Structure formats: C-alpha cells, structure tokens
C-alpha cells in the first residue's frame, strides 16, 4: 500500500525543488543549444514539470520507467544525476548513456530508466514487456510508461493497451496531453479527443488529471499504483498539460496562437504550487529563494561537469553495437 502523500513542509519543498531543478536545467539547455554546445534535437519540458515530478516521484525503486525524447524532466525526477545528464546532452563519454544517445536517449540501469525513446509510440510495447517480466517473476514493480498524445494515433498505442489489459499487466500508462503532436493540434488528428476514453475502450481504468497541478498528478499516480500492485491490471492517466516552448529548437510555432501560450503560462505549475505553498504558510519566501539558488548552482555544476568530460575516442566507434554479456 503506497503511503498517502503528506503535504507537509518537507514534501512541499521536495516537490517545488524537483520542478525548479527541471525548469532551470531545461532553460540552461536552451541557452547551451544556441551556443551549439548541444546539437541535434532538443525537446524542452518547460511547463510540463508537474507531470514528471508527480508521476516519477511517486514510483518506488522496484518500478521501471519508459519515457519519450522529451524525457529530461523524468530523468531528473527519477534521480539521475544532473552532471551525467548534462554530459549526455553534450555527447561526452561521462554522460548518462556514455554520450552515445544524446538528448533523446537517456538510459540509466540503476534507476530502471529504460529511455529516452525517439519513435513516437515506440516505447509502449517495451513497457508492456517490462510489466510482463515483472508479472511472470511475481515481482512488486510497476512499469510506468509516459508518452504524449501524439502516440495515441500510432498503432502501437492500441496494440499495447490491448495486450496489457488482456494479460492484466502491471503497467501505468500516462499520457501527457499537451494538445500538440509537434505541430499537429489534437482536434486535427483525433476523431475522439477524449484520450482517457480510448483507454476505457480497452477496459482499462482511466482518469483525466490536471497536469499543471503537481499535487493532483501525484495523488492520481499513487492511487493508480496502489490499484496495480493490488492486482487490478493496468491503469491509465491522461494528464492535461502544455509545453510553453516549441516542440524542439527548430520549431517556429506557426501552428498555435501566442495568446493561447500566454493563457497556459498563467497556470505555470511551479508558480502555482509556489504561490499556494506561500499562501498556506507551508513555505516561506526564503525557502523558495534558497531552492532557486541551489538549483541554479546545481545546473552550473552540471555544465562544468559536462564541459570537463572527455570525448570518446573514435577508435572505440563500434563499441556497444554487440554485447559480450548481459549486464548484471
């Protein structure tokens, strides 16, 4: 039985701290991208922090995570150190994936972080397999699978939900619905825009959550995890959220209105939770300032870690293509 979150000072500080760390990390990545320290694709999570912190923060060490290419927040919330995460963005050999994957392919074995998956919908079958393995071994873990609403249009979404429900697998499907699949608004790509209803069609218990409210996301996650661990089969959460920045650094955002973005910014999860914590007296102004200062320092240290990392020698180019043994 998962303990109910006690929204005390410590926990409030933890939630805010995690969201701030993600926000400052992502903002620094945007800056570094313009300096060409980070290359390729960069998908920022700014505005969506409550989802990663609420979901991933509620998971136990036995649980596994499958995420998408917009996964830096999930990696940080899971406990992957910021230094190796930033080094991975750079492509340095001291990166989380030894520099081989980059922004879209963060993997971490100790925390059961199974990527970092860049094919929309491609991670869902993996999560089904993780859940299957856990069930076959009669283990306590849940496979948490996070994806955007764009994945709902892919066949893998339907195949995976059906299989997970049919075999009653311990999988938590979390759809982070930020209303746009790159430049495609959901009304233009889905005949049925109520995504959690699609999960219901597979007879999966399904709930819609305010993804800008970290407390609501955490509460919904804990409830769902309890049900899964009690043997109820897979659960589905649709978290309504919004990314304040473009899809990636290449996106000119021609497809959405600036006023819409501003409306959602008024619901910034960090500001909202911070204001609430201040108003309720749970946190003081000095607490928040300290958290911001600490997160900022952590980001600077992470950049230094990345800058100081080595490039993998070209002579090792073909390393990791084939494995000599299964890692333990």
């Amino acid at each position, binding site marked *: 039985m998962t303990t109910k979150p006690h929204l005390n000072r410590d926990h409030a500080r933890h939630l805010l701290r995690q969201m701030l760390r993600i926000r400052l990390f992502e903002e620094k990545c945007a800056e570094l991208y313009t300096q060409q320290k980070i290359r390729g694709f960069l998908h920022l999570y700014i505005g969506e922090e409550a989802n990663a912190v609420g979901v991933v923060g509620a998971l136990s060490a036995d649980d596994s995570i499958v995420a998408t290419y917009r996964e830096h927040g999930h990696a940080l919330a899971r406990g992957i150190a910021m230094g190796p995460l930033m080094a991975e963005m750079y492509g340095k050999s001291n990166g989380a994936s030894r*520099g081989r994957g980059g922004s879209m*392919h963060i993997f971490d074995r100790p925390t059961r972080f199974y990527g970092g998956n860049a094919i929309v919908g491609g991670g869902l079958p993996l999560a089904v*397999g993780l859940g299957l393995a856990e069930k076959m071994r009669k283990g306590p873990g849940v496979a948490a699978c996070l994806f955007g609403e764009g994945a709902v249009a892919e066949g*893998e979404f339907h195949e995976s939900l059906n299989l997970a429900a049919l075999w009653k697998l311990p999988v938590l499907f979390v759809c982070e619905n930020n209303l746009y699949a790159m430049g495609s608004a959901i009304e233009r790509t889905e005949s049925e825009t109520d995504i959690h209803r699609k999960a219901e069609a597979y007879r999966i218990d399904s709930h819609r959550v305010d993804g800008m409210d970290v407390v609501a996301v955490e509460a919904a996650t804990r409830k769902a995890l309890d049900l899964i661990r009690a043997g109820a089969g897979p659960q589905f959460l649709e978290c309504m959220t919004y990314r304040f920045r473009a899809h990636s650094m290449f996106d000119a955002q021609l497809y959405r209105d600036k006023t819409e973005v501003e409306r959602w910014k008024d619901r910034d999860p960090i500001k909202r939770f911070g204001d609430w914590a201040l108003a309720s007296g749970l946190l003081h102004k000095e607490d928040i300032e300290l958290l911001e200062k600490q997160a900022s320092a952590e980001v600077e240290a992470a950049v230094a870690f990345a800058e100081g990392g080595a490039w993998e020698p070209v002579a090792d180019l073909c390393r990791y293509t084939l494995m000599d043994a299964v890692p333990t």
Partner: protein
Amino acid sequence: MTTAGALQKTTYREAVKQAIREALKRDERVFLMGEDVGRYGGCYAVTKGLLQEFGEERIRDTPLSESAFVGAGIGAAMAGMRPIVEIMTVNFSLLALDQIVNNAATIPHMSGGQFAVPLVIRMATGAGRQLAAQHSHSLEGWYAHIPGLKVVAPATLEDARGMLWSALQDPNPVLIFEHVNLYNMEGELAADAGPVPLSGAAVRRPGRDLSVITYGASLHKSLAAAERLATDGIEAEVIDLRSLRPLDDTTIMASVARTRRALIVDEGWRSGGISAEICARVAEQAFYDLDAPPARLCGAEVPIPYPKHLEDAAIPQAETIRAAALELVRPQGRTA
C-alpha cells in the same frame, strides 16, 4: 530405449520443437510467445503439444499485434527474461520492423552498454508453396544489413536443434530464419544432439571446381545440383553460410582460394541482397584468387507469383543452380 549419441529418425520440425522444449525445461526465464503457438499448435505445427506440457504462462498466444508482442519481447529481455518470440513468418515481421530495427538493434548502443536485449525471434521464411507475393518473402538478407542484430538460417537438423539454445545464451538479439520447405525434411539426429555454434559457415560438400555459397532451403537444392554436376565431371564445393550476420569470411575465402570460382545462391532478390554483399567481400578479399567474376543465382526481380510454373521460375532450383555452375566453370564459347 536409445543410448545417448544413437541416431534417431526425425524431422526439421521435430528438431526445432525439441530445441524449444529443452530450452523451456532448462531455463525458467525462457518462454515462447506468438500468434497461434499454443491452442493452434503453431502455424507449422512446430509447437504442437507444448501448451499442454508447459502451460499458458510459458506458451503465450498473442493477439495479432506484431509490434506489441515483439516490443514486449524486447522489454522482457531487457528486464532479465529470455523470451522466444515467434513471428509467424518474415512476411508479418514488417509490422514489427520498428521494434526490431529501432529498439532491439539499438538499445544496447544508445544506452552506452547499460542494457542488453537477449531476445530470440524465430520466423518462417521463403517461397515455394504458391502463397503469392505477400506470403513468400526471403528478407533475412535485409535484416542482415542491420548492426546490432545477429541473423542465422539453420538448414540442417543439427542446426535446427542446436542453434536455439546458443541463441538464447547470446546477449544480443538473434533472428532465426526457418525456411518453410524445411519443416518436413527428414533425417537422422543424435538423441543427445546439443547446442551448436551460432556463427561460422560449414563446408557441407568439399569440391575443387567451384564454391557454391548458400543457406537455408537453397542449401539442399545446391547439394542436389552438386550430385548432378559430379556426373558432368564437375566437383562443386557447397558452403552452408549458417549465419548471415556475421558472415564467415574466413571459410568463404579459403574455399574460393581452393576452387577459384564462386557461385552465390540466394532465394532473396538479386538487387542489394545478401548475395551482393558476399560478392563484394569475395571481390575485396579474394580478387586475385578468382579465375572468373563471382556469379549469383537469386530470386528474379518480381514479387513472387502464385502459379507454380512462375513461382518455380522466380527462385533458384537445383536445375538452374546446375546450369549456373556449368556456365561458371565452362563458359559458353570457351573450352573448360
């Protein structure tokens, strides 16, 4: 009662089945999943009786969801199980191509070596049963293009029996291609036949006049052609590649150095197929050993047609292998 090592009459199908049974019994992490592997007994009757013997946890019938159940196999393998995923035929594997190429082949590399994918995928492959274009592909050469995958094609009873366990021991994703026309093949196998190496080509018939380099069902057509060629006064060396990725350059080049002529036989299409890769390697590594350009006999550039006479003409046959060998060794207009 048979003594260990005593030969028993069996079939390729039965050899594969015993390999699966042995794996399920030896390693509790092993399980098999795919369409109709359980209640139906397997599309080619390979898994008949296994559901009754091992139960629904270990023999899992899946919905018709190739992407999901192959991806689930990848996830389960990453999490420490040893799944055998059966894709009914290579023709349906295209629905799981993203999982195979973008996940199974890449995750060990993308993760910097943190996660292995010790997954075995078995697929039936090949033409010859008048099943027409969508059910007759030979795409193992396509898969052999992908770094991160291992691709094997057991053509003999020993390999059908012994490659599966070796594949399960391999930390990498291994694709096992079983030609549809081999399942009924009869032969003798030692009662205690065990694992065989996953890589390495085998000289199935030594010869001096040309090297016939092939795999799968084409191996047996090539051996039949070799018998006919012997009466033509030509001794063909027949090499069974066994593994398409990795290829065994050493055995191939040693053979070509002896015979000085190479004929690659592949049921897959000529353009950009595995035959082209072998030709390139022979040209790169054995150019100065050759008395003639490397030759190929492959699938014709046509989707496999339904009527028997057209299907037969579309893929290599013992007669056309013999003709190609004759042309290679005794080209028209020149004396041998």
